[in-house]
C-alpha cells in the first residue's frame, strides 16, 4: 500500500494528475470508503486492503468532467467496467491515469460476522503485503481467527482472473482466488420446477426495500436519469407496493445492463438486504454465452454488445421452451 501512496504523491507532485481516486479509512476497521485525495497530506488517510471491494470506475464518470487528470485505482475486475464505460462514452480515457492495483480477493464482513465474530476492534492479515491466508481479528471478546478464503465475497470465488484489461501502470501483487463455478448457482435454479423458482425469487425479492443501492453502485447503470425515476414509462416510484414491482424493477434493471454487465458483483455486495442480485445478471450472461457465443463485457472497449448485434442464424425465442 505504501508503494501505492508513494506513487500517488509522485504523480500529484509532478502534475501528471490533480487528484487521486482511492479509498480512505472508514469509521470501522472494515468499511473503507471511496475518496478523492488532492494533496500529499490527505493521502495519509489512504487505505487499500481486503475490504476495498468498491469498484471505482463509476466515479470516473464525474471525475471525467473535472479539470485535469485523475489517478484512479482499479482492481483487475474493475477494469472491465472501465472499458465498458469507455465504449459508452461515459468516461474520458484521457482524463484517467489508471493504476492497476493488485488483488488477493476482497472480503465480505457479513461472512465474518456470520461466524459469530462480534465486537470487532481491528483486523489484520488483509493488507496487500500480507499473505491473505488467515485473518486475525481483535474483538471485545478476545482474539479470533478466520480463514481469508471463507470470508471472501462471492464474486472473488468465481473471479474472472487477475489480469488488468486497461491500465497505465500496475502496482501490487495479485493472487488467484477462483475456486468455484460461476454459473453453478444459476444452473441450480434453472433445474428447479417453475413453482420452486417462483418461490425462490419471491422469497429473495420480497426483502427488497427499493433503496436503489444496487442501481446506484452499478457501473453499467450509469444513466443520467433512470427509467425508474422518469415519467417516460410511468414507472417513477420509490417503494415497492406490490411484489410485482420488485420483479419488474429487478428484471428491467438486469435487462438494461444485459450484454453490458461485466459481472463485477457490486450489486450483491452493497445490497443491505443481502439479495443475491448477481443471479439475475449472471442468468443473462449465461444465456448470452449459450445463445450467441462467449461474451465478456468490458474485455475491450470496442466490441459490439450482444444485444446490439445479431446473426442471421440466431436461435428463435422458442428455444426457451424447447431446451426444457
Amino acid at each position, binding site marked *: 500500500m505504501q508503494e501505492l501512496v508513494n506513487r500517488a504523491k509522485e504523480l500529484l507532485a509532478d502534475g501528471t494528475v490533480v487528484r487521486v481516486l482511492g479509498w480512505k479509512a472508514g469509521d470501522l476497521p472494515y468499511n473503507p470508503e471511496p475518496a478523492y485525495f488532492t494533496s500529499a497530506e490527505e493521502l495519509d488517510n489512504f487505505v487499500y486492503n481486503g475490504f476495498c471491494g468498491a469498484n471505482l470506475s463509476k466515479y470516473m464518470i464525474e471525475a471525467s468532467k473535472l479539470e485535469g487528470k485523475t489517478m484512479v485505482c482499479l482492481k483487475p475486475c474493475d477494469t472491465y467496467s472501465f472499458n465498458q464505460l469507455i465504449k459508452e462514452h461515459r468516461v474520458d480515457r484521457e482524463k484517467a491515469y489508471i493504476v492497476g492495483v493488485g488483488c488477493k480477493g476482497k472480503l465480505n464482513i457479513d461472512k465474518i460476522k456470520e461466524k459469530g465474530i462480534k465486537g470487532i476492534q481491528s483486523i489484520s492479515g488483509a493488507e496487500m503485503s500480507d499473505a491473505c491466508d488467515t485473518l486475525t481479528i481483535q474483538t471485545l471478546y478476545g482474539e479470533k481467527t478466520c480463514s481469508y478464503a471463507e470470508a471472501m465475497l462471492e464474486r472473488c470465488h468465481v473471479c474472472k482472473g487477475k489480469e488488468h484489461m486497461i491500465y497505465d501502470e500496475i502496482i501490487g501483487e495479485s493472487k488467484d482466488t477462483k475456486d468455484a463455478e460461476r454459473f453453478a448457482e444459476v444452473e441450480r435454479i434453472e433445474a428447479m420446477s417453475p413453482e*420452486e423458482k417462483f418461490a425462490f425469487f419471491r422469497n429473495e425479492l420480497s426483502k427488497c426495500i427499493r433503496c436503489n443501492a444496487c442501481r446506484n453502485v452499478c457501473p453499467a447503470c450509469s444513466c443520467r436519469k433512470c427509467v425508474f425515476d422518469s415519467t417516460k414509462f410511468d414507472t417513477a416510484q420509490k417503494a415497492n407496493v406490490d411484489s410485482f414491482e420488485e420483479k*419488474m424493477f429487478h428484471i428491467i434493471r438486469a435487462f438494461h445492463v444485459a450484454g453490458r454487465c461485466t459481472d463485477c458483483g457490486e450489486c450483491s455486495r452493497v445490497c443491505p438486504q443481502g439479495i443475491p442480485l448477481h443471479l439475475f445478471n449472471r442468468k*443473462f450472461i449465461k*444465456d448470452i454465452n449459450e445463445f450467441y457465443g462467449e461474451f465478456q463485457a468490458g474485455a475491450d472497449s470496442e466490441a459490439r454488445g450482444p444485444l446490439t448485434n445479431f446473426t*442471421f442464424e*440466431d436461435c428463435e425465442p422458442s428455444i426457451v421452451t424447447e431446451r426444457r
Partner: protein
Amino acid sequence: MSIEKEFRPKIVAFCCNWCSYAGADLAGSSRLAYPADVKIIRVPCSCRVNPMFILRAFQKGADGVIMCGCHPGDCHYSTGNYYARRRMTLLFSMLDYIGVENGRTRVEWVSAAEGVKFSTTMNEFVEKIHSLGENVRLEDLRCKN
C-alpha cells in the same frame, strides 16, 4: 348460488405494421376467426417492443403476450426483427428463470401474406393460455378490480 365465471384470458398481441399487422388484416378479410380475447397493438416494427411493455401488460393482468414481426430477413427496416429476436429470447428465458410459465409469452413471425398463420397462431396461443389458466405470478394485485 355462485356460478363459476368462465375464464376469458386477456391477451395482448404486438404486431409490426408491415408484416404481422397486415397479416392480421388479411386474416380478417379472409374471415379466419380467432378468439376475441386477442387484442392487437400496432407498432412500427417488432424492434419497437420494449420488454417493459410486456411486463406492464402482465402487471395489468394480461394472461399472455405475443409478439409478431416480419420473418427474419424480411424486416421492413431490414434488421429490426433480428434485434427483437435476441431481446425476446433473453427476456423469455428470464421470465422462465423466475418461475413464470413460459407458455405465456410467444414470438411468431407472420408475413403480410400469412393470414392463415396469424389466425392459427392466435388460436393456438389462446388455447395454450387456457391450459395455463389465469396469470397469477406476474399480476399486480392492485390492478385487480
